[in-house]
């Protein structure tokens, strides 16, 4: 763009009359078009001119050729096996053949996925593996109910018209382009293609007569146009195939959902086991040891009191003092642990509980809660622990001077935003560090179909948004 502008300025400054129209045109373009639109047009032009020479265009073309060949084989397999299967459907033999046909379709699906991965760089997730029940009848039942198999078969059938479309349009345009470009050389031979151009007549239809030379040039020029258009026709057809591949050969929506629920369930089970283990550890290392030491001191004091002959009151007082202090520490620790299991403040509601947790934070924290409906206890608990953990992180890592917590209701969702003005750079992926707590939080939130987002650029501020359903 800047080159063009520079040129136009130069043209206007130099009084070259012959070049004036071109200079004026370019500067008019520059003035009419905002700079970004001009850049865009240039980019489009470059893309169009380059496309016949890109790897992608040739890979897609190859995909269509391979796909058309495979489509014929696949369709033959499915049609023959299904025909036999349906003909004998009232016998187990027929059903078994249908089952085999479905299993075969699954195999075809795998081949198609691999072809798409290699040639289209289209990474389609594999459906859940076929898991037959034991025994022949179990296998038959599982095979006939295999959604992935039926969907792969649907792909095979839908691929037939698509392959036909590919041959008639995309492949034909390429053939036409090739024929037009070589027409001047092979003029004598009879055109063989079945493409669009052929449908409307031989390449010669483009010329309205006149000398041979003009005709040759016209056909050659149309060949050039077709050469640049062909990759885009291919792209459109391939795009339709991509849609079909994604819709029918990947895992279906139900199984994706099942898989994500299974994942969430596993995480929930693991998380609750980890929580129980942590609580046990806290009780074991803290309170229990504290109480054992306390009992031991009282035991020693008791024995010293029984020894009435050498009553060492100072030593006894010391032991009782230690025991007393130990008892108070044990009570304090026990309260902390109990709060970690279920915060008593939650019984009065989220607002009170969040105010309590904010008040305990070392960073001054504003809390705003406007929730019309009470979420279910499970959701309230997750919301509370998210805020507690996030504020603990703020205290420990953010070096913030202020933090805020807002909790609002949006329809049937609860949204909480925890914000601080600290140094930022919080990442949930750092396993083993203190922020692995963030991963645990995110897991808990995802387990109930919630969302957990962190925006924490280096230098801050950090904004964590937690979005939860009001009920599970």
């Amino acid at each position, binding site marked *: 763009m800047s080159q063009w502008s520079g040129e136009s300025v130069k043209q206007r400054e130099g009084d070259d009359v012959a070049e004036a129209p071109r200079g004026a045109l370019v500067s008019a373009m520059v003035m009419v078009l905002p700079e970004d639109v001009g850049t865009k047009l240039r980019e489009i032009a470059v893309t169009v001119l380059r496309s016949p020479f890109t790897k992608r265009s040739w890979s897609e073309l190859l995909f269509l050729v391979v796909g058309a060949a495979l489509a014929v084989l696949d369709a033959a397999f499915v049609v023959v096996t299904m025909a036999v299967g349906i003909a004998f459907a009232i016998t187990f033999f027929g059903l078994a053949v249908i089952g085999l046909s479905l299993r075969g379709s699954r195999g075809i699906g795998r081949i198609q996925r691999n072809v798409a991965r290699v040639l289209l760089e289209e990474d389609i997730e594999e459906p859940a593996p076929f898991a037959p029940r034991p025994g022949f009848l179990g296998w038959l039942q599982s095979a006939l109910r295999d959604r992935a198999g039926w969907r792969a078969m649907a792909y095979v059938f839908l691929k037939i018209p698509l392959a036909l479309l590919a041959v008639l349009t995309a492949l034909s345009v390429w053939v036409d382009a090739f024929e037009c470009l070589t027409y001047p050389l092979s003029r004598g031979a009879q055109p063989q293609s079945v493409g669009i151009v052929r449908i409307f007549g031989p390449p010669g239809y483009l010329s309205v007569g006149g000398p041979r030379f003009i005709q040759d040039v016209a056909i050659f020029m149309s060949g050039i146009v077709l050469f640049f258009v062909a990759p885009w026709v291919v792209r459109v057809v391939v795009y339709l195939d991509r849609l079909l591949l994604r819709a029918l050969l990947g895992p279906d929506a139900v199984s994706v959902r099942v898989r994500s629920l299974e994942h969430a369930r596993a995480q929930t089970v693991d998380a609750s086991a980890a929580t129980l283990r942590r609580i046990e*550890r806290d009780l*074991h*290392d803290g309170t229990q*040891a504290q109480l*054992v*030491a306390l*009992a*031991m001191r009282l035991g020693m004091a008791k024995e010293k009191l029984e020894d009435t002959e050498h009553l060492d009151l100072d030593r006894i007082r010391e032991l009782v003092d230690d025991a007393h202090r130990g008892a108070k520490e044990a009570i304090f620790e026990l309260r902390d642990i109990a709060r970690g299991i279920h915060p008593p403040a939650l019984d009065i509601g989220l607002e009170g509980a969040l105010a309590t947790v904010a008040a305990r934070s070392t960073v001054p924290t504003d809390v705003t809660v406007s929730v019309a409906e009470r979420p279910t206890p499970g959701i309230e608990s997750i919301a509370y622990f998210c805020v507690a953990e996030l504020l603990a992180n703020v205290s420990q890592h953010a070096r913030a001077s202020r933090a805020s917590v807002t909790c609002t209701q949006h329809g049937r969702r609860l949204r909480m935003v925890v914000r601080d003005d600290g140094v930022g750079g919080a990442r949930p992926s750092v396993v083993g560090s203190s922020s692995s707590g963030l991963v645990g939080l995110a897991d808990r939130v995802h387990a109930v179909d919630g969302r957990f987002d962190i925006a924490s650029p280096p230098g801050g501020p950090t904004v964590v948004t937690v979005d939860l359903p009001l009920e599970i």
Partner: protein
Amino acid sequence: MDAPLRVVIAEDSAILRDGLVQLLIDRGFVVTAAVGDAEELHKSVERDDPDVAIVDIRMPPTFTNEGLRAAIELRQSHEGLGILLFSQYIETRYAAELLAHDAAGIGYLLKDRVADVSDFVDALVRVGSGGTALDPEVVTQLMGASRRAASIAALSTREKEVLALMAEGRSNGAIADALVISEGTVEKHVASIFTKLHLPESQSDHRRVLAVLRFLDS
């Protein structure tokens, strides 16, 4: 106690470790070292050659059974070193592992037992002088899980009490004290138990413990 027993303590909870040190010094023991993990325990045993090691089963770094592993290793490398395992819970499997070869100089107690200072000190002395001290909880679990329930059922209530105390590693004198009966009566009960359970009479206390435990565990 002529020469005071020399004791090393391996316990990761600082509160408990300090308390134990205080208690043992108060009772006239010599504490050679008080450490927080198995590695330090090995080093201090090597250096000080104590008579007894009080070992917490669960210690850093994994907080599972480091203490037990260390105890088994020490038993092999330092013959005659008494080991008193000290735990928040009783795992019968651990007891079985520890007593696999010999019950001499082995103890396994719940940490709570330090509250009864004299009993704890007795147990420690017993272990230090080659005896056995098993927590009543261990014995209860072993008796509960025993496949010899039918034989045990043939014992009288008093005999069951004596059996439990024997399994804990107590001498006839200590059993007599605990049950407030004469030592002669205890001897009669013991003989009757051994007859009813078809066990051979044993001379020393710890052999007797082993015989009883084998019986319960088999």
